[in-house]
């Protein structure tokens, strides 16, 4: 059976890319065709209208699509999570210099950021931060980062969307002062000498839910085989021994090259924070391991709470409607747990 699976080129697309490219799908009798999507909006619409059979998707966007909050309402479900964490907040070198935090720890960094953001808003030239889509953990992590410094993001900072591959250029041109994106784009901005990683996603919100495998709820007879294939591929991706091979696969197949060493380092949670080469080791920076695959309805509830807090949706039973879309039962049935 041939399935078309959509993805956006990011490190956490690894399990679906590996499932398609390394034989995990074939072992389950599936022929997976990868479809690289140019934007999350297009991925969402193509999944909703049946052009895609499944997708690597922002967790909040999968929920928003199924709840009719974003794009054409789609009958989707989430039978598996692909990862936790993987994002970071990077700021321009100039903003980092202006922030000059007392210590390189979240509380101090966020407080220093809040001070600059307040000053800039008062001068009528607010800071501009980039995210990847309104319905993303990135947007929520920016809000939480501001909150950690006692700042209400909406009142003081302009938030725009920048497609991840454009983040480096947007920083260089001064169109944004910083951004929250997924791996490997923070490391790439640092390597380009343009940014300073201010906070890792896993510090802002430990074990933050991130990408999921989204499937149409109807006629998904292929679901068990697909879940097994992606689950087994995910286990392969999480094995530290496979990191160099995975980095090469992502560079070649997901367009995340050309720096394979940077990719392998990022997959292992070794983050170079600035041009001076300051290193922070965070084993949980991007979690792909077995413990994250079973979809946790509490994650859906957390996303729903963030949507409400961001003014994206009214709080009329949203959490429970969101939680019902996460289907650990499908995961258990497929993987024989």
């Amino acid at each position: 059976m041939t399935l078309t699976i959509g993805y956006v080129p990011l490190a956490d697309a690894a399990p679906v890319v590996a499932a398609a490219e390394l034989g995990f799908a074939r072992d389950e009798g599936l022929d997976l065709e990868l479809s690289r999507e140019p934007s999350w909006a297009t991925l969402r619409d193509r999944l909703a209208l049946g052009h895609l059979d499944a997708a690597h998707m922002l967790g909040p966007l999968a929920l928003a699509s199924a709840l009719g909050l974003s794009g054409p309402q789609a009958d989707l479900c989430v039978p598996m999570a692909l990862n936790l964490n993987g994002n970071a907040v990077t700021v321009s070198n100039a903003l980092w210099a202006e922030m000059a935090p007392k210590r390189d720890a979240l509380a101090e960094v966020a407080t220093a950021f809040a001070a600059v953001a307040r000053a800039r808003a008062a001068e009528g030239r607010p800071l501009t931060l980039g995210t990847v889509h309104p319905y993303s953990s990135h947007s929520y992590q920016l809000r939480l980062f501001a909150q950690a410094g006692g700042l209400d993001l909406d009142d003081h900072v302009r938030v725009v969307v920048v497609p991840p591959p454009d983040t480096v250029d947007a920083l260089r041109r001064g169109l944004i002062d910083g951004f929250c994106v997924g791996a490997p784009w923070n490391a790439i901005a640092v390597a380009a000498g343009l940014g300073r990683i201010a906070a890792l996603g896993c510090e802002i919100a430990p074990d933050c839910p991130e990408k999921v495998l989204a499937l149409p709820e109807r006629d998904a007879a292929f679901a068990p085989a697909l879940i097994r294939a992606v689950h087994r591929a995910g286990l392969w991706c999480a094995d530290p021994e496979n990191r160099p091979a995975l980095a090469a696969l992502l560079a070649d197949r997901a367009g995340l090259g050309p720096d394979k060493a940077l990719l392998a380092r990022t997959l292992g949670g070794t983050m170079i924070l600035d041009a001076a080469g300051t290193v922070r080791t965070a084993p949980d920076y991007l979690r792909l391991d077995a413990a994250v695959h079973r979809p946790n309805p509490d994650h859906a509830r957390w996303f729903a709470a963030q949507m409400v807090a961001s003014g994206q949706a009214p709080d009329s039973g949203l959490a429970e409607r969101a939680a019902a879309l996460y289907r650990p039962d499908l995961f258990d049935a497929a993987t024989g747990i």
Partner: protein
Amino acid sequence: MWLACPVRPPTDHRTPQNRASMTETSLTVAVIDPSPARAAILEEGLRASGVDSVAVIPDGPGLQARVAALKPDVIVIHLESPSRDVLEQMSGLSRQAERPVAMFVDRSDQTMMQAAVDAGISAYVVDGLRTDRIRSILDIAILRFNAFARLQRELEEARSELADRKLIERAKGILMARKSLSEDEAYKLLRRQAMNEKRKIVDIARAIVTAADLLG
């Protein structure tokens, strides 16, 4: 401005907003398409149908500012454009957007949506714009984009046909030189071989050319 900031508050995102008064002819349409040729074709089509203000906005980091300055009533954007997510942020969910933009076409119209997506189109529309106006613009976009795709396919076919013909000419030339055949005989030999092997003449020709290249 759409993005003057910080801007307080509007609105629940579901609250319909009253638009500034807008007559039928005063629409501003923005076209965003990674293919400049396709964008030009759509621009021309919209002008021909009486839309007086059409602007093509290139993808890239400057897009947001261009859209904010133009304040279009309708944005027609190709599905292949990475800028769609930029528009989603601008479209009313954020408190910074003074002019909320509805998603897509009338959401109840599945057929229209399917046709638009099949043609590679999505549209962002200022809240309150009349459905028939949106529909006529989308109709034009669908027609133009489908025509463009057809032209491209035909061009591609013509190109590959030309390439096939060149390959067959080269193979004939090789056979004529190596086997002292006439042009007609060389072609008949190719055709007979193709029939025997149940393959296309061009495949036999390619094999001959490849072999000749390898063997010198």
